């Protein structure tokens, strides 16, 4: 089982849209068994998949191991793709984890019983850097980091890289440009800067597209309603690039 996470310190960069599309592509294109864990109290990923944002007993009992994680999982509309829904109680997840021993290892140990059931687990993380994200860093094999080509967004990537190095966390970082709008001179300038190579971005970037915004209306991944669009094609290429990278890393 490979564990991935869509993560960014910054909000509004397209983490959830990425998580939803990649999880769908892994299941639909590759026939993999995928679990998407919606860690965000906003529960947008659960909304996209038409699953009620509700955890029986709340998140505290879940992370304490008092409720069975498997019983909380819901199947989505798509074969091979399940979701552990978000819940408003995730807003207290930092506190709940802090109250447990070795909080940074908690998510990894909760996933162990699922190792035989899924090929991929994908965390959709809330923005911020906290105990929750520390726990995700230690549970994940790779962090998929959407970055908008703006100075502030790039800065958060540099911050994250420094933090991981300092904390000696062994996780592969897979940043990629998202919501790229080549009509904007700022986006073009940043993408063409000679320092680009230092950022070690993935080759695929996701263009800004109103089709991505329509996902909330259609409540489905792009490939289900806008298969032929550039955004949908870019997500397909992004998944293959990520898959090639993670297939060679150990679980």
């Amino acid at each position, binding site marked *: 089982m490979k564990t991935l996470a869509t993560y960014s310190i910054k909000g509004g960069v397209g983490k959830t849209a990425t998580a939803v599309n990649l999880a769908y592509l892994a299941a639909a294109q590759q026939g993999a068994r995928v679990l998407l864990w919606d860690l965000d109290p906003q529960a947008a990923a659960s909304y996209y998949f*038409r*699953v009620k944002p509700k955890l029986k007993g709340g998140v505290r009992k879940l992370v304490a191991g008092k409720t069975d994680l498997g019983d909380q999982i819901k*199947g989505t*509309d798509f074969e091979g793709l399940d979701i552990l829904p978000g819940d408003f109680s995730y807003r207290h997840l930092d506190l709940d984890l802090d109250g447990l021993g070795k909080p940074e290892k908690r998510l990894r140990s909760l996933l162990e019983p699922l190792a035989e059931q899924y090929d991929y687990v994908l965390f959709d993380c809330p923005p911020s850097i906290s105990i929750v994200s520390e726990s995700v860093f230690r549970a994940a094999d790779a962090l998929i980091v959407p970055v908008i080509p703006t100075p502030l967004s790039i800065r958060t990537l540099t911050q994250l890289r420094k933090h991981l190095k300092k904390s000696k966390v062994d996780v592969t970082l897979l940043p990629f440009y998202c919501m790229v709008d080549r009509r904007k001179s700022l986006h073009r300038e940043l993408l063409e800067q000679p320092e680009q190579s230092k950022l070690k971005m993935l080759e695929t970037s996701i263009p800004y597209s109103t089709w991505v915004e329509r996902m909330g209306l259609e409540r489905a991944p792009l490939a289900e309603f806008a298969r032929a669009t550039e955004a949908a094609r870019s997500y397909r290429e992004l998944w293959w690039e990520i898959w090639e990278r993670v297939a060679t890393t150990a679980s």
Partner: protein
Amino acid sequence: MEPLHFLLDETRGWVEDPDSPADSEPTEDPIAKLAEALNPKLRIDLRAETEEQVVALDSFDWRLFQAGLELTAGDGRSRIQTTSRSPRKEAVDLTAETEQLPTFVNDLPSGKLREVITPVIGQRRLLPMASFRRRRLSMRFLDLRDKTVVRGYLESVSIEGQKKPLGRRLTLIPVRGYKRPFNDVRKAVVSALNPTVTEQSVSFLACTASGRPPGGYTTRLDLQLHGEMRADLGLRLVHGRLLDIIEENLYGARESLDTEFLHDLRVALRRSRTALSQVRGVYPQVTVDHFKGELRWLFRRIGPLRDLDVFLEALPEYRALVAPDSTRDLDPLQDFLEARRHAEQQTVRDLLSGRRTRQILGSWRHFLDSELPTSGGPPMARTPLGRVARIDIARLWKRVLHRGTRIDRATPDPALHELRVEIKKLRYLLEFFHSVLPPEVREFSKSLKRLQSTLGNFVDTVVQQRHVEQFATEMAMDGSASPQTLLAMGQLIPQFEARRIEERGHFEERFADLSTSENRDRMDKILADIQPR
């Protein structure tokens, strides 16, 4: 929760019924009825209908089926899935691209699918067990928020060569976390469609409808005989089952679909001959003499091909016995054996489709199905079967003990061969009549099998050694072997000799195992109540 399968149109049947009219598709629309029963809680969203030509594959003896696996091929890919009888903890569902129908496991691309199949199938040929056309209509059951809460599909199947489509099969697949709607749909299916629940897959049902019920092949006799039945009836039942096995294997042996067809055919012939010659005074002597001769003739004619099959199957192992730089020197031997096998296969094909074979098997069947004599006849014909079985087993047991105890380290090899033949006969009789004998047969047979295995290895080694010498002579004469090849073949002889000596060294211990007082007591119980003849 596991998927549920329902057979609709039960009256139409999944097995070809020659009396039912060759009518068209069933007219009733089960989806409409089901939608009505689910309204307004759930609605059905129909997806695209797919149609594909599928071939179900398995070895001649259903090894995949027995292991709880199902291999299908169609539309450029092969798929392996676990079935309801799978002992595996985790379900398997793997596909691989295969442009052509795979014949052996090596025809499958390397990967997980091949890894799952290889230990089960080994070198056996993958045979098409059923060829059918499947139409599948996928559907989703949506709740009031348009969330998929149950998945399903409706399949209809047409067997190649059969005009009438088979009945339809509805499958419901639970969606994790939505148990209640699954139960609602299940109840609606039951009440609206009045179906039959089945655990069998479409492949299983198609194979059954094609006249090849999965797992239907076995060389076990599985006969439940009664000790009190007349001996000629019991013996005819044994011979009848053996003749079934012979006939089941005729086509595969003739077409060389898998070497095991010929093997099973030959074993069934040998068992038939043993039952003829060792169960005495039950059939008229003239019948015994006639069919003994006829079955022996057939048995001996197919022997050379079987010998070549055995040698060719063992050749990779023999290659490992010679020095590494001589391995390739055995290639001409393989070519020689394959050419000979090809010629021998033609002979066997002609033989098995020939008039004499048909006559032998036809007249044998005619005799076995004929009326039993109501008076007179051979001396033991109307004696209770249990008694006849015990008398013949006692005679063979005595002979085995007598021959076995006379063998020591100085005894020439042919004596061991003769003992092996007697043991085989004794084992066959115990197998034929185990249902009329006490349970001690089971434990006794285990010791007998161990001894038989040692003697079998010993004799096989002697035979293979003789074959190598004979092939070397023939290849030297026809110029198909270089000196290097002859030298490589020569390297095998001391290896066979070492193995022969090793196996012979085990004989004493194995025979002592068989002739322990426990086993003698067991045999006394098996043979209890026989009056002197």
